[in-house]
């Protein structure tokens, strides 16, 4: 079996291109490049209705993404949705009386949590809770109410 240098070089190039493609996928295609997966803290909020919110839905403040939803569970005693979100620790100066609302991006887009900052001097810490919340708007419900009002008005 003869040993050929060009063959070695080609194999080396093949492996290098393959690994480069893996890196390309990781950095350019996936969210790994924009991950600040370092430090974050968890904040929870309770909603009457969490609508179409999903794990990993964005959490934004003034339109800037500051974190992601990490879990959505149901509180059995109050029948409310408990949404936990991880917020990047660089945003550690959110007032603790901030409110959280679930909005929809565009008419049919995905739902996200928007945080409106309050005016308190104390800041949110890990495991703290947002008390003022407003639920997701369910389109069918709104249309239903609108139709009812129309019918009653006549």
């Amino acid at each position, binding site marked *: *079996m003869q*040993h050929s240098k060009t*063959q*070695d070089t*080609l*194999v080396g*190039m*093949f*492996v290098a*291109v*393959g*690994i480069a*493609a*893996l890196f*390309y*996928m*990781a950095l*350019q*295609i*996936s*969210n*790994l*490049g*924009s*991950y600040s997966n370092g430090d974050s803290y968890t904040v929870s909020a309770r909603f009457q209705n969490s609508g179409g919110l999903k794990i*990993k839905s964005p959490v934004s403040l003034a339109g800037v993404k500051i974190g992601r939803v990490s879990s959505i569970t149901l509180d059995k005693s109050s029948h409310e949705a408990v949404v936990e979100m991880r917020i990047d620790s660089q945003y550690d100066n959110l007032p603790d009386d901030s409110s959280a609302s679930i909005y929809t991006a565009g008419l049919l887009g995905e739902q996200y949590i928007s945080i409106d900052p309050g005016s308190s001097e104390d800041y949110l810490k890990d495991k703290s809770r947002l008390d003022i919340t407003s639920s997701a708007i369910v389109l069918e419900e709104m249309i239903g109410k609108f139709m009812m009002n129309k019918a009653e008005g006549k």
Partner: protein
Amino acid sequence: MLEFLELLGKTARGSFAKLGRATFFLMHVLAGIREVLPRPNLLNKQLYSVGVLSFLIIAISGLFVGMVLGLQGYYILSDFGADESLGLMVAASLVRELGPVVSALLFAGRAGSALTAEIGLMKATEQLSGMEMMAVDPINRIITPRFLAGLISTPLLAAIFSSIGVMGGHLVGVGMLGVDDGAFWAQMQNGIDFNEDIINGVIKSVVFGFVVSWIALFEGYDSVPTSEGVSRATTRTVVNSAFSILGLDFILTALMFGDI
């Protein structure tokens, strides 16, 4: 009726026996890895014939699959006014499904059939028996390097396929159809998760590479040592690989992405 049952029993016994032989074969091949690793030259040669020579077909197919996805996706998405999501659609379908599956199918056709024919012919011309006579284990020397090369090449080829496909989709979507460049990448990066999509895609292609190399090498090793036998074994390799890839893909997808 009795003849039918007899035939059924015979077929079942035959397939079980083959499955058993294939399993022992696999054990032997895996045990041979220890012997191959100290001799990287053996592996290098196979990486060349299995991986490097498959590169071109994978790259060109990836480019065209990506370009077609860009075109088709654009026509459907623009009906809903969602043509910015084109990047996400192209990348998700490539990384999750088409990359691993199509590159494994091409790999089975390009490299798997060649492996079966090579091993089958070695058996037919009694080269394998010749090695045994010289007290060289043909499985360690011939089969295991090829198996390892297949196992290493497929994930790399799938990654190349997906990356070039995304570039092809970008070429058509942004270059020809006028989708916004920023939105194309932003939607993609928002929607594709590293652990969930990319790692799962790589796991899929490793599984496919394992199965295709196993089938190809076993069919060659188990073939009837005549020209007809080798030709049948080659056909069986391609057919069985395609079945196993598509069947396993369903199972893996259900395990990874479904909530089963």
